[in-house]
């Protein structure tokens, strides 16, 4: 399964494509289960990049754990949570707040 991720142009914050827009958390990201869906996400990413909404657009591997979308690779897990050495920063801190 794949999801679409990028960084927001204005502040660089990591975002994931979910439900027609760019969400600041990964949990509800739109999942692509097949090639056609991946192509659709990729086209959305390319357009958002061209429209200067986001930069560094990528399709990444994801899985669903307890009904929540999670990235597979450590790099993407860290992007989705924040630095592992600073639980007070990044998405993990916002979730805790």
């Amino acid at each position: 399964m794949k999801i679409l991720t990028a960084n927001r142009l204005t502040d660089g914050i990591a975002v994931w494509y979910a439900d027609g827009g760019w969400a600041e958390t990964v949990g509800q990201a739109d999942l692509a289960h097949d090639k056609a869906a991946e192509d659709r996400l990729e086209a959305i990413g390319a357009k958002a990049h061209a429209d200067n909404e986001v930069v560094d657009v990528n399709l990444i591997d994801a899985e669903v754990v307890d009904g929540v979308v999670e990235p597979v690779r450590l790099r993407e897990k860290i992007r989705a949570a924040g630095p592992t050495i600073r639980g007070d920063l990044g998405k993990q801190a916002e979730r805790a707040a």
Partner: protein
Amino acid sequence: MYRYDEFDHDFVQARVAEFSDQVQRRLSGEISEDQFRPLRLMNGVYLQLHAYMLRIAVPYGTLNGKQLRMLGHIARKYDKGYGHFTTRQNIQFNWPALSDIPAILADLASVEMHAIQTSGNCIRNVTADHFAGAAADEVADPRPYAEILRQWSSVHPEFSFLPRKFKIAVTGAERDRAAIQTHDIGLHLKKNAAGELGFAVYVGGGQGRTPMVGRKIREFLPEADLLSYCTAILRVYNLYGRRDNKYKARIKILVHETGVEEITRQVEAEWQELKDAELKLPDADIRAIQAYFAPPALTDRPEGDQAVKLARLDSKGFSEWLDQNVVTHRHPDYAAVTISLKGIGEVPGDASDSQMEAVADIAEKYAFDELRVSHEQNLILPHVARADLKAVYDALVDIGLATANSNLISDIISCPGLDYCALATARSIPIAQEISQRFASLERQREIGELKLKISGCINACGHHHVGHIGILGVEKKGSELYQVTLGGSADENTSVGEIIGRGFSSEEITDAIEQIVETYLGLRLNPQEKFIDAYRRVGPAPFKEALYAGETKAA
């Protein structure tokens, strides 16, 4: 210290205005990311995992209190309350919004700072011995030459689009504290038999995926020829350096592939065309720049000896800190102080906004308003009267920056790694923290003695692992972090590249492996004075391999 002249002010202000306009045009969609990316990189703006990152230049690592206070202000106002001092004597902020960067650059310009040429394929911040101007063992302060190189290399039209980035370091002492042999050009300021100043010139050092020790191509270059000779080196590199492969584009590859004799011949030939032309430095110009670096007026403070003696009796903590973090100054009543940014279990090189402000206060009050950033990611107060050391220590204790571990195993260089960096393949900071905690006992650290441990989270080697006495390189293998260990590296006047000791270790195993290496060293050293690096050079890798892997071989 150096003060901007009218030209510098206009130049930096013009760049702030230009880049602010570029940011506005990017945000409004007038220019694309492909167009903007090289522009933002020229101004130190990267995109990392969580956000943009801004790298600010600290020329040759020299700062004053006002500047450090401004960095603290930026950390608080635009970032998340901290900054990260780097191995190139710069500082990085991890969370700035692109839309705030024009305001940050304007704030920086107000204290004569900028982020120009902290990225891109140009000549980067020129680094220098962090004890420059204070060290008892230097022939002259190397920073005026670093400043001359800065002025020459700033937006140099010929050298703004090199095959790859280009790093220069300069030291003024035999004892190399600036790691000059790991730089594209390394300059060792020295005196010849006639007492004249000049440089031994090294080229082609570097780390990354192909580590190389710089080769000496000139024993003595007169100081007046600094710019013409560097221009000759850069010209040869610009002409023949590889542009077909990013990983082979550094000058070290050119030196390696061409051979040091042929490179030397080419540089010397080019230099013959340049040496007597306009790049020759007039003596008056050198002295004018030197005047900016005139040392503070150090009045005699002979009461320091007695004060230190008494304070030692009074405080074990002070005594330990004095032994470890305070070094001899050229003036006997003064000392140079290392402020460790390596508290046990802390993030190497990080300082909070309030710590930066407090250190700025200390520098203004006790250290003639001078500060340095070391390439080992610590801060330095280069001139402190011995009589004031206890007051400085007490002030550092108050802000949690009095860890007495300079040059010990917990004084770890670490890159940001996968916790922040888009290029990283593994985390480095948590490994540094775990090792630091494992060796938390100062008594144990001091028993081990000088040990340089350096960690990189990818092959680009920002954490200098190749030249660590113990180096750790984090890679990704089958989706997990794996840590390779190198031993025997060194970044001083006897620079060497460490050797991979064997198979890598998981994140759970690595600290035990390091402890095993240290215990092996303690068991085989001739005496407590034999440092880790000396013992390793004497015995080689075999005993360490045996200690780490013997069980496996037998099992297999």
